[in-house]
């Protein structure tokens, strides 16, 4: 079983729910559990929101790319922006670290991604945008149920 898709959308907050709905639809053939579905929707929401708020400083009209693929039971999601980039990725990943406390951000986005997914790979540098790769293996349902 194998599939992939790529979607580019505008850096507008309306598109956060669009990204969640798109990924839910894409991963449906993997027959995810409710929890797996919610985990993936949550991390997609985190990465897209980060691209809008941090990458593009809430400016619309910029590109955000959502790439999804699966092969057998592994789902891979890549969310990329061409925005400001991150100077120190390790620091950015620290729980509760935020560069925008004035916007009531709590610095939990990366922590949520790391807790809800199997692998999180962040590639970023100032001026070169940010690429977040998220991987998760779906647990076979018949093994869970019995």
């Amino acid at each position, binding site marked *: 079983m194998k599939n992939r898709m790529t979607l580019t959308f505008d850096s507008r*907050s*309306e598109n*956060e*729910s669009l990204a*969640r709905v798109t990924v839910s639809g894409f991963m449906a053939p993997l027959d995810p559990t409710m*929890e797996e579905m*919610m*985990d993936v*929707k*949550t991390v997609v*929401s*985190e990465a897209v*929101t980060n691209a*809008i*708020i941090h990458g593009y400083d809430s400016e619309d009209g910029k590109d955000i790319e959502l790439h999804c693929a699966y092969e057998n039971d592994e789902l891979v999601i890549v969310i990329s922006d061409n925005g400001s980039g991150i100077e120190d990725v390790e620091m950015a990943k620290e729980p509760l670290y935020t560069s925008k406390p004035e*916007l*009531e*951000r*709590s610095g*939990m*986005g990366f*922590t*949520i991604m790391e*807790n809800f997914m199997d692998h999180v790979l962040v590639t970023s540098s100032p001026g070169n945008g940010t690429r977040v790769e998220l991987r998760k293996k779906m647990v076979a349902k018949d093994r869970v149920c019995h």
Partner: protein
Amino acid sequence: MALATAYEVHDNLLIIRLEGELDHHEADKLRKEWQWWLKEKRKRHVLLELSGLDFMDSSGLGVVLGRYKEIQANEGMLMISGVSSEVDRLFELSGLKKLLPFAVTEEEALQKFGVMI
């Protein structure tokens, strides 16, 4: 799906019921409405009823944490009820579970408020 908000008042207590999805796109409106009730209507205690909430991310955590601080500064209490297992994991991760009281149902929350206020 968007976010629907409903507000109900009992004396000093404001009950906020959320239905739908709370993300960055919906957070601003909720923040503004909630602050209006705290500042203009001077409601001191808040019960946030989430049994109708289908989705929440860190944007929701930010709004809750921000209001928690404001309510706390005004010597009020914020309680949360009807949390789904998914939303519960977010509250747990963020440390909010240790900061404020939770109730399983709205009835239980109101009972607790009756005792605590």
